[in-house]
C-alpha cells in the first residue's frame, strides 16, 4: 500500500488538536478483553481507553481482530453463535458486561454503523431515521417529536438538504453514500454517547467517502467515535488517536500524528510503511 496516496480531502486537515491522553477523560475503557469465536481467540488481552469526544481509529491488517474488538464495545459480538468475551468494557466506569446489564440498553447508548449501508427496505427515509429512536422509549414518541428528531439527525449527518423533499420515499432509492449517512443519522437519532463505525466507507466511492469522513470529523466533541478502517490515510485524516492491532493483540495506541510520524513499535512502523498488510 502506498503511503503517499494523494489526499482526496482538502477541507479536513489532519487533526492538530492537542490530545494528551493522560488528562482527557476516558468514556470507554477496555480492560483485559478477550473475544472468542468458539475456541478461536480473536481478541487477545486488549486494554485501551477511548477518550470522550475524540475520534479513535483502529487500524490493522485483515483478520487482526479490529472489527471483533469494535463489536465487543456494544455487545454485538455475543449475537454470533458460539461467540463470547472475557474481561471488562467500562462505559462511564460501569462494566457493560456486568451481571444484570441489558445488552439492549447498552446498544442504545453505543450506536453502530456497518461496512455496508443497511437501511430498512420497508421503511421510508424518515421512518428509517427514527426507527431506533421509536424503539427506545417506553411510550411511542409523538409524530411531531419524531419529525423533529428526524430533521435534527439528518442535519447532523449532512443529509437533510438532499432528502428533505422526499422523506416519505423509500430509503432504497438513495445512493450508497446517502444510505450510509442515513445509517449514521439513524444511529445518532437515539442520542448515543459513543458511535462505532465498522469500515463505514469500505463500500463507497471516493466522493461519498469524503462526505462520510467530513461527517465523522464534524461529530468530534459531541460524540465519542471509534472507527475501524483499512485505510491508513483515512485514519490519519479523521482521527485524534490511532490504535494498531495485529493478530488479535493491541500493539500500540497513540495520538494519530505521533503514530504516523514516529511509531513506538517496530511492527507498527512496518505496517504503516507498507511492509505487510
Amino acid at each position, binding site marked *: 500500500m502506498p503511503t503517499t496516496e494523494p489526499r482526496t480531502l482538502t477541507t479536513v486537515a489532519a487533526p492538530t488538536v492537542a490530545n494528551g491522553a493522560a488528562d482527557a477523560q476516558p468514556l470507554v475503557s477496555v480492560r483485559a478483553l478477550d473475544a472468542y469465536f468458539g475456541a478461536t481467540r480473536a481478541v487477545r488481552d486488549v486494554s485501551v481507553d477511548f477518550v470522550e469526544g475524540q475520534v479513535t481509529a483502529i487500524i490493522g491488517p485483515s483478520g487482526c481482530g479490529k472489527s471483533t474488538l469494535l463489536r465487543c464495545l456494544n455487545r454485538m459480538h455475543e*449475537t454470533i453463535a458460539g461467540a463470547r468475551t472475557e474481561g471488562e468494557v467500562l462505559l462511564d466506569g460501569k462494566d457493560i458486561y456486568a451481571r444484570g446489564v441489558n445488552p*439492549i440498553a447498552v446498544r442504545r447508548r453505543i450506536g453502530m454503523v456497518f461496512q455496508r449501508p*443497511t437501511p430498512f427496505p*420497508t421503511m421510508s427515509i424518515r421512518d428509517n431515521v427514527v426507527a431506533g429512536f421509536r*424503539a427506545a422509549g417506553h411510550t411511542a414518541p409523538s409524530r411531531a417529536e419524531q419529525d423533529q428528531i428526524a430533521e435534527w439527525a439528518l442535519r447532523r449527518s449532512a443529509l437533510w438538504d438532499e432528502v428533505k423533499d422526499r422523506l416519505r420515499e*423509500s430509503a*432504497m432509492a438513495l445512493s450508497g453514500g446517502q444510505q450510509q449517512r442515513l445509517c449514521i443519522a439513524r444511529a445518532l437519532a437515539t442520542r448515543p454517547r459513543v458511535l462505532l463505525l465498522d469500515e463505514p466507507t469500505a463500500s463507497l466511492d471516493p466522493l461519498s467517502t469524503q462526505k462520510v469522513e467530513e461527517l465523522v470529523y464534524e461529530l468530534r466533541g459531541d460524540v465519542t467515535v471509534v472507527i475501524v478502517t483499512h485505510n491508513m490515510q483515512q485514519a490519519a485524516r479523521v482521527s485524534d488517536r490511532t490504535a494498531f492491532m495485529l493478530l488479535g493483540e493491541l500493539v500500540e495506541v497513540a495520538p494519530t500524528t505521533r503514530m504516523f510520524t514516529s511509531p513506538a513499535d517496530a511492527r507498527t512502523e512496518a505496517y504503516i510503511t507498507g511492509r505487510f498488510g
Partner: protein
Amino acid sequence: MNTRMSARMSTRMSTRAPRRSVRARRARSAVMITLTVVAALLATLPLIFILALLLTQGASSLNWAFFTAMPRPVGESGGGMANALAGTVMLITIASALGLPVGIGAGMYLAEHRGGRLASVVRFLSDVLNGLPSIVVGIFAWQFLVRPVHRFSALAGGIALAVMMIPLVTRTTEEMIRLVPDALREAALALGYPRWRTSLTVVLRTALPGIVTGALVAVARIAGETAPLLFTAFGNQFWSTSLTQPISALPLQIFSYAISPYDEWHALAWAGALVLLALVLVISLVAKFATRSRFGSAND
C-alpha cells in the same frame, strides 16, 4: 476418408481451423436452444389445452344461475353450484385460519434457529408431509375427526386442507425469511432493538411480500384438492354453512357430476372446472402482484 478425418480433427483442434469449429459450435448451440424451447413450450402446453377445453365445454353452461342457484334434481334443467361455491370459500377460510398461523410460525422458527436439531427434524418432517399423497391426509382426518363423532363435517374438511397447507407455507416462509440479509438483522440489534422486535418489524416485515405470495400459492394449491375432502367434508346437496355438517365443495361437486350419467350434470361439471381454474388463476395473479411491495422489490 482422408478429408473426413481431417474435418473431424479440425473440430477437435480449434486452433488449426477456427472458422469450421465456430460453425460447429454454433450449430450445436442452435440445436440445444431449439430443444430447450420445445421443452418449455411442452411444459406450458397442457395449461393452454386445458384452458381451451374448459372454455369450449364449460363456458356455455356458465351463467348467472350457476353462481346463485342451488343444484336441481335429475331431469330438471338449469340449476347451479351456489352451495359448492360457498362450501369451497368456507373450507378455504377454515384451512387458512388454521394453516397460515401455524405454517408461518413454524417457518419463522426454522429460519431463526436454522442450525438446531429440532429445526432440522421439523424441516425434514415438513418435507415428508409435503410429499404425502392427499388421499392419505383425507384418511388421517377421517380417522381422527370423522370416525369418533360419526359425522362428516366442514371442520374436518378444513383441517384436512390445513394439514396440506402447513408444510407448503412453512417452507416458503422459511425461504423468504432466509432471503432477508443478516446485515439488516444486525443493524436492528445494534440500534437497540430487542430480538422479538427485530424479528417482527424488520425481518418479518421485509420478508412479508414473499410470505404473502407463499400463502396465496398454498391457498391456490388446496382450492382444487378433492381427495382430502372425500371422507371429511363429504359433499352436500343442500345449502349449509355449519361447521359440524357435511359441506359441499367445488371439486367434490365436479367429481360427482362428472361421474353421473346425465348430460346436464356433465355440462355443469365442465362449468365448475372452469370456475375452479379461474379461481386458481386469479389467486396466482394476486400472488404475483403481492410480491411488489410498497417500495418496489424487497430483495434488491
